[in-house]
């Protein structure tokens, strides 16, 4: 019963590419990418209580890892994904260690700094990283290939995240989020679990970044990974509802589809109009649904249950 929605989602996703045009398959790929990145951020922010505004930086690192492996060493594109996972996991742990000394707003600003700084490095070291033109993988892939690979990765990572969070480690994460002092006095090692959460979260973002590069015709460019990407992921996670896995899909749909939908509305159609609409809707959602879509789902579910109970 509990797995029914997940199963239904998987079946729909498997059948969907046959009903979609190439363009819409491309759109669905971006939604998968946002899904993975938001999932990663949710593990860190929603479950462990460590805020990060810097996940675009990890996406950039993952994306550049994939491009460099493909461009310089001709590694198979699918094989680059686990490597990018490992590389960004290591980077996440490296960032997580100094982050142990920071919390709250200071951590938010430090990760914000990361998001701003990382895209500057390809510009400085243009010899290895291609400068503002970026680098390209040695071959590009079709929409259908991307659809399959990105949603398969999303499914694998979702299950992995779910397994991680339901067990001992997830319990430790939530204990840290709710009270660090209580967690530490119950024997949860704060340094180990916090850096581990940073690593896992960064690794998810890294895989999302690799897929992101493949989706943009195999190009990794610094301005694609600008601060706006990090903000989008944070918005997606907040709109999804922190600390819930089921809202993540809605959050990904929100940031993936909203620009597309508002582009087709007459008055809003220009690109600045889209920004205005996006900002307005984000503000409204946070005012109306402070716990995001997950909070709404939980409320609807409880109402549904009481309706059934009173009916029988």
């Amino acid at each position: 019963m509990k797995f029914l929605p997940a199963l239904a989602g998987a079946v729909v996703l498997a059948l969907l590419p046959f009903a979609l045009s190439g363009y819409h398959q491309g759109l669905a790929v971006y939604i998968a990418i946002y899904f993975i990145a938001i999932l990663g951020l949710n593990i860190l922010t929603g479950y462990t209580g460590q805020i990060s505004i810097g996940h675009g930086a990890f996406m950039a690192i993952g994306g550049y890892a994939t491009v460099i492996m493909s461009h310089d060493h001709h590694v198979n594109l699918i094989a680059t994904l686990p490597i990018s996972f490992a590389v960004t996991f290591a980077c996440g742990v490296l960032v997580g260690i100094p982050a142990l000394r920071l919390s709250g707003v200071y951590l938010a600003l430090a990760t914000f700094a990361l998001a701003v700084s990382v895209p500057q490095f390809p510009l400085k070291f243009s010899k290895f990283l291609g400068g503002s033109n970026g680098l390209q993988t040695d071959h590009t892939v079709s929409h259908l290939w991307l659809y399959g690979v990105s949603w398969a990765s999303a499914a694998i990572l979702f299950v992995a995240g779910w397994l991680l969070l339901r067990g001992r480690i997830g319990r430790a994460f939530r204990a840290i989020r709710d009270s660090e002092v209580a967690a530490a006095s119950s024997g949860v090692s704060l340094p180990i679990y916090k850096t581990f959460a940073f690593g896992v979260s960064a690794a998810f973002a890294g895989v999302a970044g690799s897929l992101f590069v493949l989706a943009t015709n195999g190009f990794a460019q610094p301005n694609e990974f600008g601060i706006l990407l990090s903000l989008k992921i944070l918005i997606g996670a907040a709109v999804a509802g922190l600390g819930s896995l089921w809202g993540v899909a809605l959050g990904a749909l929100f940031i993936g589809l909203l620009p597309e939908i508002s582009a087709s509305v007459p008055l809003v159609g220009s690109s600045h109009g889209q920004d205005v609409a996006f900002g307005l809707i984000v503000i409204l959602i946070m005012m109306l649904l402070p716990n995001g879509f997950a909070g709404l789902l939980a409320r609807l579910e409880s109402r549904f249950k009481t309706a059934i109970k009173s009916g029988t």
Partner: protein
Amino acid sequence: MVSFAKQKTAVSTGVSLPVLAGLAAGAIFLVVGSVSSDIFAQQTVAGLALGAVFGSLALALVLIYRATEVINFAQGELATATTYIAYQLTLWGLSYWLSFFLTLLIAFALGAVIQIVVIRPIQHSVIAVVIVTVGMFILIDGLVTWKWGADLKFMKAPFGNTVYHAGGVAFAQQDIGVLLVSILSVVLLWVLFQFTKLGLAMRAAALRPAAAALVGVRVNWMLAIGWGLAAVLGAVAGLMTEPTQFLQPTMMQAILLYAFAAAVLGGLESPVGAVIGGLALGVFLNLIGQYVGFATSELRLPIAFAVLLLVLLLKPNGLFGRKQVRRV
């Protein structure tokens, strides 16, 4: 569900002896360098002007952080928007300084209205406020570009283009004007907070909201006024950025990042720290750009943040922040 409930902690700021000694050493280094080298002196003055702008925006962030423990990510975009309003006023034929002061009034109203309409209903949740200010960032950016376009706009130079020569050193009148206006606005604000009844009420509302309410301070109004004053400081920062960067929708984005760095450097709780942090950062970036070949313009932001991270790791509450004691 995570609420990120706010924990009001004891606010205490102050200077420790090593920090004071370090600052004094830095100041002596700047004076000695300026006396011995003309280029050094020039870069120092230009750095101070740049740093004063960072400082006023940083102070705006600190004002809001002290009162509500949130960071306003839209502060820079708000500054950009108010600068465009000043530009529009000069287009309608008002003189520069008349539009300057009118803009400050408009900025105050704008800041207060934003607090009342958008922030007040959700102010119990820090994460919601952060996301809303991020939403405002995107919204204001879109509005400004929609109304005025993305191309560069120019206003009349407020301080003229005169350059003074003292010995072999050239000082731009503009740099000195920017420095004076920024410092003056900071001093005026300090006077307001330190010597008026309103300032006292605002400090009380920020420090102990419940106790302040009990003695008759209208805490919600104080918060709205705080947001208004922060917007005024932002408008000053925007108008003082315009002479060197010119008007474009993205002009305050980099400045906001430096202001973040400056505010954290000084300790987010400390107004003095924000201003000194801004000045120090401005001078440091200018000097390092002049004398260190590796530090090209692409690396300015990363260097600023590397310094910031280093300071945070040594003193997690900033140079002027004291260790907070938190009750469990």
